[in-house]
Every structure is written in structure tokens, then in C-alpha cells.
């Protein structure tokens, strides 16, 4: 496995690791049988323009180094963004940020993208007007 320095750094010191009690949205993706599970928690508030922004975001991940690093990166990228901006974050953005992933590990970054989207969807479902 050839991880970039950045992947190793994010794996070693993941940002936004943990849980948000009373989260506004939780995205649970992956499957323990496959060895990859990621839970993304978000806290949402409205800004002065009335847009919904991700005020806080945390993750819990069971998975390989790539899964942990991409979890961390996706939360960093999403933090402070509006929901519609955050929804545009793709796994490609995450991989680019990390300076690449081994081919066999590309799917881990997909998990991160999906986790974030799932959390936003969960929030939207709960807050449907």
C-alpha cells in the first residue's frame, strides 16, 4: 500500500473525530461485513442570509487508513459550508486533497462522499417542512 504523506498524516491525526450528541443529521454508510463503516454527524444552523450551514461535523469510522483519512478530510471540507455547497463535495475532491490514493483504495473516498450526503439527507428528512 503506497499512501501519500498526507494520507498518513490525516490517519495519524484525524480531525473532527468523534460523535455529536443530538446531531441534526447522521449519515451511516458502509457495511461491516466488507470492513468499511462510516458514520457522519452534522450540526446545522442558519447564517445571516438564512442559508443552512454545517456548523459542526464529526465522524466515526471502522475501516482502513484510507477510510479514516478520507473521513477526516471530508469533514474538514464540509465544515462551515452551506448544505448545497457541501453536497457538491465529491470523492474526487477528497482524493485530490490527499494527493491521491492507491487504486485499490479509491472506494474508501466514495464512502466519505456518501457519508456526508447521507447525513445531509437525514437532516433534510427530519426537517421537512
Amino acid at each position, binding site marked *: *500500500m503506497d*499512501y501519500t504523506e498526507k494520507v*498518513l498524516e490525516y*490517519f*495519524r491525526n*484525524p480531525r473532527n*473525530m*468523534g460523535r455529536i450528541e443530538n446531531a441534526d443529521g447522521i449519515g*451511516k454508510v458502509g457495511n*461491516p*461485513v*466488507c*470492513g468499511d*463503516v*462510516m*458514520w457522519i454527524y452534522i450540526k446545522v444552523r442558519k447564517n445571516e442570509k438564512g442559508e443552512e450551514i454545517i456548523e459542526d461535523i464529526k465522524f*466515526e*469510522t*471502522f*475501516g*482502513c*487508513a484510507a*477510510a*479514516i483519512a478520507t473521513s477526516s478530510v471530508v469533514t474538514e471540507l464540509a465544515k462551515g459550508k452551506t448544505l448545497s455547497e457541501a453536497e457538491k463535495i465529491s470523492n474526487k475532491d477528497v482524493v485530490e486533497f490527499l494527493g491521491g490514493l492507491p487504486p*485499490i483504495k479509491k472506494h474508501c473516498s466514495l464512502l466519505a462522499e456518501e457519508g456526508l450526503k447521507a447525513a445531509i439527507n437525514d437532516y433534510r428528512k427530519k426537517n421537512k417542512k
Partner: protein
Amino acid sequence: MENKTIYMDYNATTPTDPRVLEVMKDYFFEKFGNPSSIYEIARENKKEIEKARQKVAELIDAEPEEIFFTSGGTESDNWAIKGISFALKNKGNHIITSQIEHHAVLNTCKFLSKIGYEITYAPVDKYGVVDVDFIRKSIKKETILITIMHANNEIGTIQPIEEIAKIAKENGIYFHSDCVQTVGKIPVSVKKLGVDIISLSAHKFYGPKGVGAIYIKKGTKIETFIHGGEQEKGKRGGTYNVPGIIGLGKACEIAKEEMEEEAKKVKYLRDKLEKGIMENIPEIIINGHPENRLYNTLNLCVKYVEGESILLNLDFEKIYASSGSACTSGSLEPSHVLLAIGIPPEIAHGSLRFSLGKYNKEEDVDKVLDVLPKIVEKLRKMSPFWEKK
């Protein structure tokens, strides 16, 4: 080995004993030559090769004429299985093996199944011991080969080879055993085991990489695998890997002399490591047979975390272990061996193998016992499954 690193992956490969390299060195330049030629340096090389053959034979209680040199365990496994299959194709097309064999055996069987052979995979119990009764009942008139490994590379479980070999013999079926993990580690006598063919590999017991051997009992009908020149009585082509073969011989000699003592030392360290981990980390599963297990192997599942993450964290501390077999660490599948012994996939993903060897010291174990609990704790904190259970 680099200073300060702690290597605990001896089942994957071992460093070449400096005494082995010492005897190999001269054969690259000063004494190089092709042993198949007739001139003097070639004849001397030939003699050294025959001495090496003798040493391999002595280590496994065979005759020198029954030893053929190969490029390693994988080639030996391929030769054994394909060689018998092609030689006996008019007799039958059925092979019995187990679910926990090395990929060198499993993928060879898979290939054969594509070209018309039928393979039966015997299951194992929760300790990884193959179901001997299942093997007995699977035998039919088309069965031409039973191949069961001596000890498993991932969990270390030692199989009841003598018993299976007896069944094979009673039914007039050839029996091959992949002894790559046992030769050089524990006493192996082909006569006592009652096997027809075994595979062995130098780099698993302090010999060089890229060289191994196969034992083929006199009279065994087997097709050649690597066709070529007249080397090895026409049974294995290819210019002799002179330094490699001489290195294998030396490794066998050293193993024969020092195996017993090393075993005691290594077992002590492994046991200490096992005990320490069990006492300091909750929710650990130890895999493999409690007694009939390689004395150097400790395979465990750390629940709620994934193996690679543990390995990488160990790596940051210069501790080198593995998550199972080295050959599959390129893949994302959980270990076929752990699944076969009934570990659920989500737990199998958290597997870790420490395999110790003669250069390990007690401090190494202490260091692992110091850092591993912290690593596990950190990763478990990150895991969605941990606190919630």
C-alpha cells in the same frame, strides 16, 4: 535488519542468516560456473549442490535423490499439484484439499478446475483443524491427489498429516503436504508423516529468497513442471541457482542444529506476548489451535477495529506485523482462513498476526505490549461500534 525495528512477521519471510550469506557469497563471482558443464569449476559447483541436496534430505529425513530444487514454495506447490494431475489424468480428475490452504495451492486448484479437474475443499473446525472424516468420505475412484498443508501460515494450526496420509495410502492416492511453514521450524520427517511429496521454501527459515525444494518420494509418478534442460535428472529445467541452493543447504544445516533451542526461546516470547495482550486488551479473540499450533505464531482478532489501521500504527512505532498472509495484503477481502474457522467477516477484518523468530528479543515483546493497547484504544474510540455495544 535495521536497528530499533521490531520485526514480527517471520511467517511472511525471514532475514537471511549472515552465516548463510557468507557461504553463498563466493559463488557469485570467484567460484561462479554452470554446474551442468564439464570443466573443473563446474564440477566443484556440482559437488556443492549435491552437498546442499544432502543437507535438505537430512533435515526432512529423505534420500538426496528425492530432493529437487525449485524457485520456492509456490513453484513446489504448483509442481506437486499440476505434476500429479497431468501425470494421472488418465486415472482420474479429482483432487481433495482444504479451505485454508495457501493461495499457491488454492489458485493452482482453481486453475485445474478450469481445465476439467474437480476439486473438493475440506472444511476445518474452529481451531483450523481439517475435517479428516470429510476427507475420507470425499474419496472416490477418480481421486488422484490429496493435498493438505502441514501448518497454516496465518493461524499456525498444525494438521493431523500422519492420519490423512494413512487414509491416502490405504486408498492408493498420492498425498502432498505444503510444509513451507514447518520445515526448518519444527522437526519434519517425510517418513514419519508418510507423505509422497512436500514443498519447502528457504526464505521461511533464514535461507535466501527465490529458492526452495520439493521432496518427491522415489517411484512417484509425476509430470515435470518447468520443462527444459537436463538439470535435476531432466525433471526441472533451468540453470542451477548455485548461490541460492548452497544457501538453502546451509539454512537446513543450521536449522537441524539449532532448531530445538530456537524453538524454546521463541515460544517463550510468543507466549509472553499472547498472555500480555490478553491481559491488557479487552475483546480479543485468539485464533488457531490452543496446543497444536506453530510456537512462533500469534493470530488474533481485535474487535471493532480494522486490521490495516492497527498495522499502520504499529508501523509508525517501527513494529512490523501483518494482518494475515503477505500475499493477500494487496487485497481487501478478509482472510479466507479466518472465515473458514467461523470468524464473522466484520471481526475477521480486525485480524493481526505476530509471527516471531530467532532475532526477536524480550524487549521487543515488552515494546509491543506497551504500545498495542494504546493503539487499539485510539482506534476503538474512532469506531462507530465500540462504545455503543
